[in-house]
């Protein structure tokens, strides 16, 4: 088990290093000048710019810069944002929890919804219920998330007026609402973006769950379970469902990149103050340090997702435990 973990962590570290290297190379090789804060930029003469470049070490050869960057990284230093003049750790530290909240809620919801839909389909396979849900999950899976977000915004935000259309909190909320009120406010704002991401991802999970369940339902141990006198629901959930769990968990873990992608788009639709928006703005502003650190965090999240999926699979399926 430890050996397995060590191998996986080594691979993850390698991947993250690759992400950092590629991103670093990309941003530094790309055309364009980092905007060292708009204010300076406006009335900057070449001497000021040169001074700024020197301050951030941008005048040195790229290999040297990279060596410095890695050395700093090893000390846990992510550097400073050129644009915001604040430590990158702080800039991303504010945005990351918001993205994690959105992503985690969407992942959990899509997993539950996808497994539920797939289970109903498998139990009723070949019927019209299966057909309708098949089309529904295919449509969800084939919908551009950002567009689905706009549609939900149009329907629930504008037409019905049930939910807020943008942001994460209501700026007009009174001060005295207390922590619970604030949490509810965030929840109301979270609902639409999370639903958008969850629906798209649930489509993929439902399609997969149905297939895995139908496979499992054909297995001999399912026949044994029926021969024991278990109810169809118990057979489906406990026997077929348990054995279909491992592949679906893998899929859920592997959907982290898709959720990150989706969150960049969905955050922009709903004005959600997360990593996606910060990164997007940083790329356009050539805010090298922010971009590189954001890429690294994305790489870590992806690696973490697949690692957690592997661990969950090992729990779900004793045959796949590394020590078994």
């Amino acid at each position, binding site marked *: 088990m430890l050996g397995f973990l060590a191998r996986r962590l080594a*691979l*993850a570290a*390698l*991947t993250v290093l*690759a*992400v950092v290297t*590629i*991103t670093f190379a*990309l*941003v530094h090789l*790309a*055309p*364009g000048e980092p905007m060292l804060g708009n204010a300076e930029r406006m009335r900057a003469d070449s001497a000021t710019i040169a001074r700024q470049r020197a301050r951030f070490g941008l005048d040195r050869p790229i290999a040297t810069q990279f060596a410095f960057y890695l050395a700093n990284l090893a000390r846990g230093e992510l550097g400073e944002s050129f644009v915001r003049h604040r430590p990158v750790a702080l800039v991303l530290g504010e945005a990351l929890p918001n993205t994690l909240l959105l992503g985690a809620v969407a992942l959990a919801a899509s997993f539950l919804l996808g497994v539920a839909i797939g289970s109903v389909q498998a139990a009723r*396979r070949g019927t019209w219920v299966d057909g309708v849900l*098949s089309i529904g999950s*295919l*449509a969800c*899976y*084939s*919908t*551009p*998330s*950002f*567009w689905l977000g*706009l*549609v939900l*915004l*149009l329907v629930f935000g*504008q037409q019905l007026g049930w939910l807020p259309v943008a942001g994460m909190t209501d700026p007009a909320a009174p001060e005295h609402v207390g922590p619970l009120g604030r949490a509810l406010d965030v929840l109301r704002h979270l609902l639409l973006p999370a639903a958008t991401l969850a629906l798209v991802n649930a489509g993929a999970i439902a399609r997969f769950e149905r*297939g895995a369940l*139908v*496979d499992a339902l054909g297995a001999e141990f399912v026949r044994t379970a029926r021969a024991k006198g278990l109810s169809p629901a118990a057979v489906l959930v406990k026997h077929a469902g348990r054995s279909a769990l491992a592949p679906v968990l893998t899929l859920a873990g592997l959907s982290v*990149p898709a959720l*990150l*992608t989706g969150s*960049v*788009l969905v955050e*922009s*639709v709903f004005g959600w103050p997360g990593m996606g928006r910060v*990164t*997007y703005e940083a*790329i*356009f502003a*050539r805010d090298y340090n922010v*971009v590189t650190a*954001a*890429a690294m965090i*994305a*790489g870590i999240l*992806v*690696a973490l997702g*697949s690692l957690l999926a592997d661990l969950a699979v090992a729990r779900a399926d004793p045959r796949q435990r590394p020590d078994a």
Partner: protein
Amino acid sequence: MSPWRLAWRRLRVNRAAVAGGVLAGLIALATIAAPLLAPADPLAQPDPVGLQNLPPGAGHLLGTDGFSRDVLSRTLYGARVSLAVGLLAALLAVLVGGGVGFAAGLSRPAVDRLLMRGVDVALALPRVFLLLAVFALWEGVPLAAVILLIAGTGWFESSRLVRAHVRSLRDSDFVAAARALGAGRAGVARHLLPHVGATLIVCATLDIGNIILLEAGLSYLGLGVQPPTPTWGNMILEGKDLLFAAPWIALAPGLALLFTVVAFNLLGDGLRDALDPRRAR
């Protein structure tokens, strides 16, 4: 009957797949025939003040946008970018992925391991992040570069599938027989190619939808092919600001996207079931 004929037969009786295929074909035809079908020039702004944001109606079936351009015409022309990117990038990706997977599957273990480790790392890269960075840093990426970049970052999965397929076939009886008859590596490869071809076709078809969505997403962020050339993504972006006032501007290209991706996914699912009947359910 050859396996391809059998697969064709199975595909023909799969209603969902036939529907997907027909829909995809119609969309492709409409895209090619856009100049004939479009009621207006997609770029023409006849009266940016008087004719802007017209709701769907007789003159403009899908209404007009904020610049008084005909939404139907723009949607038809917008398909060009989506389909070009989707079809060409998917094709390129499976060719590269298939080639690498094929090579890995037939190589010595050391080479195979090296290639697949590389693919493992590449698969874990945040693809969209990198594309986003490249497209944003080099502004105004031409269409060909968009296709190359999407294909270049999208072949890892298919290389893994093809390698696994080659590996499983390599140990099978008919390959052993071919070897026993003196077939070298090239001979074995020739035996394997038709089998792997099926995997590649399925991969490519299922990839088209994903790539179309990816391109549309980047386009929605203002990256890739630039306005005024219509793409479904940048049309939705322009419609976003007018979402509450003129929702049709964003809805039309979105629905076009949805139908296109559904069509290719239905076709891909059908092909997979037809070419690998054991997986069909």
